[in-house]
């Protein structure tokens, strides 16, 4: 039966080339934009190298410190490294990564000692747990440890690309490197990551130099971001409670100040939407649904209008089919099947367009839903890997979008067309 629908659809394509072109372009456009929306969010949320533990990661991005004697308050987009140490002691987190924030990042000079030619890249200060939370694959050497941090060792881990640029090879553990004018020893080389995973990305990573510093009068305010990893996905909620409790305990011991967490720590995916204020899951889902609705609903109305007009032209055909015993359900299935063939064709075109746009415009398209554009300003293009584009989730979502578009655009016009009796349908041309 499906073969017959396909043959019928092919005949209709040949008969109505302009209709088919408009239909396929309209569908392709809707699917392309929907898929761009999906892929951009997939890259942000999905477990992608080296942020494969996103599903069990909680993050703290910003803090507000209130002085309880009415001296006002301080707000910061970042935390002190000491908060990482404190939370490690107070919670059962498997790892508490502390790392430099994207707001303070700008490309710095990277070179070889004794050579004047320097390149530029992001240098990020991190703690030892950073290497536990982010699953970097080491090509050579190993990560630095808490011992290196506490003894203020001048060591660095670099990216494969940086090693190739400077030395022309990747087995460079033990070599010396100049990072912002400071000579350091390379202890490890990791596989390239992409700026599309901004928390972990850098050209070189160095130990936080004031990690041992105790908390100051600014409370836990500082210049770093903190991510906590629960042992399992199920442990995320209890870890959240432990963090809140740790803050409560600290504030109780220091009555002069109170930390405002604004709903944090939050799951990694939710943190992309929390800018200045607390955002609930419901708000985020509604915002995304609004976008998705606009991207699918507007073209669906378009297609519905066209299908409705075409169903008017096909009234006689429907009358004949009904006269020969076809049920309404069979006709609906036939029309939906024919349109699905066109929608899938449009969907494939749309998916290819989405891939093309993401591959060629990655510098700005990945930040389309962000609140800041600093990587793009720094001229760093995200490297798009096959892992980011060809996931079964993405293909499944594209097909799901086609199906949804097909049902919402073709169902109502078809049901309306079936309201006429056989006689009315057969006489509709007169």
């Amino acid at each position, binding site marked *: 039966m499906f073969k017959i629908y396909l043959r019928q659809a092919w005949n209709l394509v040949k008969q109505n080339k*302009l*209709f088919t072109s*408009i*239909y396929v*372009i*309209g569908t392709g*456009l809707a699917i392309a*934009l929907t898929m761009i929306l999906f892929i951009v969010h997939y890259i942000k949320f999905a477990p992608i190298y080296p942020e494969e533990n996103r599903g069990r990661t909680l993050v703290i991005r910003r803090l507000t410190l209130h002085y309880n004697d009415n001296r006002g308050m301080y707000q910061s987009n970042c935390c002190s490294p000491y908060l990482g140490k404190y939370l490690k002691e107070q919670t059962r987190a498997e790892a508490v990564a502390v790392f430099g924030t994207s*707001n303070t990042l*700008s490309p710095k000079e990277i070179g070889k000692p004794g050579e004047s030619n320097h390149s530029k890249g992001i240098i990020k200060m991190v703690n030892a747990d950073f290497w536990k939370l982010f699953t970097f694959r080491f090509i050579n050497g190993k990560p630095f440890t808490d011992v290196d941090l506490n003894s203020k060792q001048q060591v660095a881990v670099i990216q494969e690309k940086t090693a190739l640029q400077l030395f022309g090879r990747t087995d460079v553990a033990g070599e010396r490197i100049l990072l912002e*004018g*400071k000579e350091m020893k390379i202890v490890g080389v990791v596989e390239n990551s992409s700026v599309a995973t901004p928390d972990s990305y850098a050209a070189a990573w160095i130990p936080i130099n004031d990690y041992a510093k105790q908390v100051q009068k600014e409370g836990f305010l500082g210049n770093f971001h903190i991510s906590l990893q629960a042992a399992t996905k199920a442990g995320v909620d209890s870890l959240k409670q432990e963090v809140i409790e740790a803050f409560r305990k600290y504030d109780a011991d220091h009555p002069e100040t109170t930390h405002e967490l604004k709903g944090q720590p939050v799951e990694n995916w939710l943190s992309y939407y929390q800018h200045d204020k607390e955002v609930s899951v419901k708000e985020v889902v509604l915002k995304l649904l609004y976008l998705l609705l*606009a*991207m699918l*609903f*507007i*073209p669906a*109305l*378009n297609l*519905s*209008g*066209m299908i*409705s*007009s*075409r169903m*008017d*032209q096909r009234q006689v055909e429907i009358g004949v089919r009904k006269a020969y015993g076809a049920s309404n359900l069979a006709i609906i299935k036939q029309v939906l099947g024919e349109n699905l063939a066109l929608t899938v064709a449009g969907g494939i075109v749309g998916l290819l367009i989405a891939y093309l746009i993401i591959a060629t415009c990655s510098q*700005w398209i990945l*930040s*389309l*839903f*962000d*609140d*800041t*554009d*600093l990587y*793009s*300003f720094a001229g760093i293009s995200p490297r798009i890997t096959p892992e980011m584009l060809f996931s079964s989730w993405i293909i499944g979502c594209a097909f799901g979008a086609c199906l949804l578009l097909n049902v919402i655009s073709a169902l109502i016009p078809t049901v*309306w067309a079936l309201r006429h009796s056989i006689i009315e349908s057969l006489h509709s041309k007169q």
Partner: protein
Amino acid sequence: MIKMIFKQLWNQRRQNGWILLELIVIAFFLFTTSAEVVRGSIDYMLPDGYETENAYLIKLKEGSKFRYARREREIRDSIFQSNFNLLLLTIKNRPEVEAVATVRDDSYPGSGSHNSNGFVSDDTASIRIKASLYMTFIKEGTTDLLKVYGLKDARTGEPLQLAEAKLACPQGIVSAAFARQLFGRTDVIGEKVHLGKKLPEGSNANNYFEIVGVYEGYKRSNFQAPSASTFILTPNSYGRNTSNHVITYRLKKGVDGKAFRERIMSEIAPDFENTPTAIKEILSFEESLEWFNSMLGIYIHYRYTAVMLFFVLLCVFLGMTGTFWVRCRARRQEIGLMRSIGASQATITRQFMTEAWMLVTIGFLIAQPLIIHYIHGLEWNVIDLTAHYWQDSKTWLTLATDALIYILMVLIALLGTWFPVKQASKDLPAEALRDE
């Protein structure tokens, strides 16, 4: 003709219903996407209040060797002051440089920091306004802020000149919006302004200044409206923190800014590398604004709107083309009949185009209650320091955005209709009537 077209639209209400529904959704969606961008664009068109061409700023940092050396506070301060003055003079005495000014780190275009304060006048202490507070430090006996920034006199539009101040009185210049809000006029030179509140006579606190100039305005970002603001001209350094001090300079006409920047980095910067005033980076005013706009995500917002605008307008185009193509096919006989009784191609095209225009207009009007509901519920991000420009009014902004999206929708709809109608009206009457 309009009455007849209304009848036509009503007779084909089922087919028109789809496109009408789409137009309503699109009008609403276009509005929600573009209202803030329309406002930002209007703000962008307001004069910046300063000249960015040939203007640069130098950010400082503590040299790493200096940073870790433990020294007494007084010694640190004195080393800082002497090094800072030396660097300032070195830059000022370069033949390429026209003027130099030292400002606080929140007082240059595109600074990520911002400071606002309450102000009262000397006579009418009951009026209290809130305004941006900027600061320029008078170093080596002078500040060339007016020359470096190119601030304009609010009354004449010419480069601002400072009036002579009373001896030993702190000085400040204020924006026209500041003067109007606090005094209700702009001829306020010689007036005294107090920060926060007016302290009793004889009080030792230095919390006031005398106005020695009124400038047109000053935008923190070129995408934001200028706020009520003031620059305080102070001989004191603001704290002893290196990062609080920024050196700004303007180059003489014809000097290559990039080449001069490289010369500073290679010839001057190494001498200050291990001092508390090491050069961190040099940015042009344009680059600084670019950074600020990137940080705030302003460009992202514009890109997002452009993508959405393109998407929905293409939808309108395809929708109109598709609908009118199908409709022209269905109305071939009608077109043939019209041609056979003497209607020209132009008449038929005009009739269909009028239909398209009426559809867009009806859809747009039906969307208005939704738009009004949306704009009323919007959390309006009006900076309370701005001088309340017309684009800050929800009513005016709604009208401006509505006008823009209406024009865009009509243009795209007419374009999408013209093509299929033109094709259909080319058919010979006999050919079109053959199906009859």
